[in-house]
């Protein structure tokens, strides 16, 4: 049987078409994954709500002024020492008046009462504080609490917090190490 030669379709331009598509996608899309510090804002306050009175001893006040300087509980502070200060503050010293009070809390998952610190960290910043500094402080606070969670986790399960796979254990650690950061209602602390 005579073989008839089928005329070949010229595919030389397919590459060009694909290139065009490729360039279109390169231009119109972005690759960056958004990362950041995820926080939850407190719900809006009602007008006639009374301020919750918190014992002075239970609060670690962090103030950031418009020159990006820190004031931790009335003393000049440094961002680099903030983490150790927070960890120290949140540690349990029930009989020392310098440290926050402790309260027992029943944890369902463990089936027993555990002593927890009543400490609260109050963060207040000026309108003139730079955003970079604010994030630095937030980051240091997050680091401090992360380290405490790690400690607790190693103590209880021999694993770091990030390495815990069992969601129940994660939940228990989260209950044992709460993150009591309170952001003050905005206020002009000291000029822009």
């Amino acid at each position, binding site marked *: 049987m005579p073989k008839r030669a089928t005329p070949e379709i010229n595919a030389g331009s397919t590459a060009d078409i694909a290139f065009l598509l490729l360039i279109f996608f390169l231009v119109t899309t972005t690759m960056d994954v*958004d990362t950041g510090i995820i926080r939850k804002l407190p719900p809006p306050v009602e007008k006639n709500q009374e301020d919750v009175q918190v014992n002075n001893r239970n609060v670690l006040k962090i103030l950031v002024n418009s020159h990006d300087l820190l004031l931790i509980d009335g003393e000049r502070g440094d961002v680099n020492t903030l983490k150790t200060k927070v960890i120290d503050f949140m540690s349990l010293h029930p009989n020392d008046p310098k440290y926050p009070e402790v309260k027992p809390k029943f944890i369902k998952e463990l089936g027993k009462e555990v002593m927890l610190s009543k400490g609260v960290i109050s963060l207040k910043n000026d309108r003139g504080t*730079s955003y970079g500094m604010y994030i630095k402080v937030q980051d240091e606070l997050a680091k401090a609490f992360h380290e405490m969670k790690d400690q607790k986790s190693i103590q209880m399960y021999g694993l770091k917090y990030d390495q815990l796979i069992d969601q129940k254990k994660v939940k228990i650690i989260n209950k044992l190490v709460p993150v009591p950061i309170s952001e003050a209602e905005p206020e002009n602390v000291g000029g822009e």
Partner: protein
Amino acid sequence: MARFKVKKDKESGAINTSSLPDIIFMLLFFFMVTTTMRETSPKVRTKVPEASQIQKLEKKSLVSYILIGPPINHRLYGDNSRIQLDDQFATVKDIGEFVARERQARNEADRNKITTSLKVDESTKMGVVTDVKQQLRKSSALKINYSARRARK
């Protein structure tokens, strides 16, 4: 008698390029899968600060962005930090409407899962950011993300 074969004037074969489109298509698919559509063109410079305790934002479709920073075209708009919503400059008052619009655009089931990502330049003063946060609280868009880069060790 010729000891060596005299090279015939052979037509040098063309390189086979039939697999070139396939290679390009592979590249194309790689980019299509790994990237997402650019939704807005930035009008403000947002060099986000560095942080170490950062998390990845899951589900890009449930994130709405608020950009705050000094305008790129600073000759025209000055150096003060401005807020950018969608594709244009905005003021703090527009945030409530923006949040409502973002909610409208999502499925009903997803509406309370929207995260607002604040892409703020590190030189911005907290005043603007605080105002924006207060507005977000008022319109009860409480899940926020302070956009940050991973700190270099």
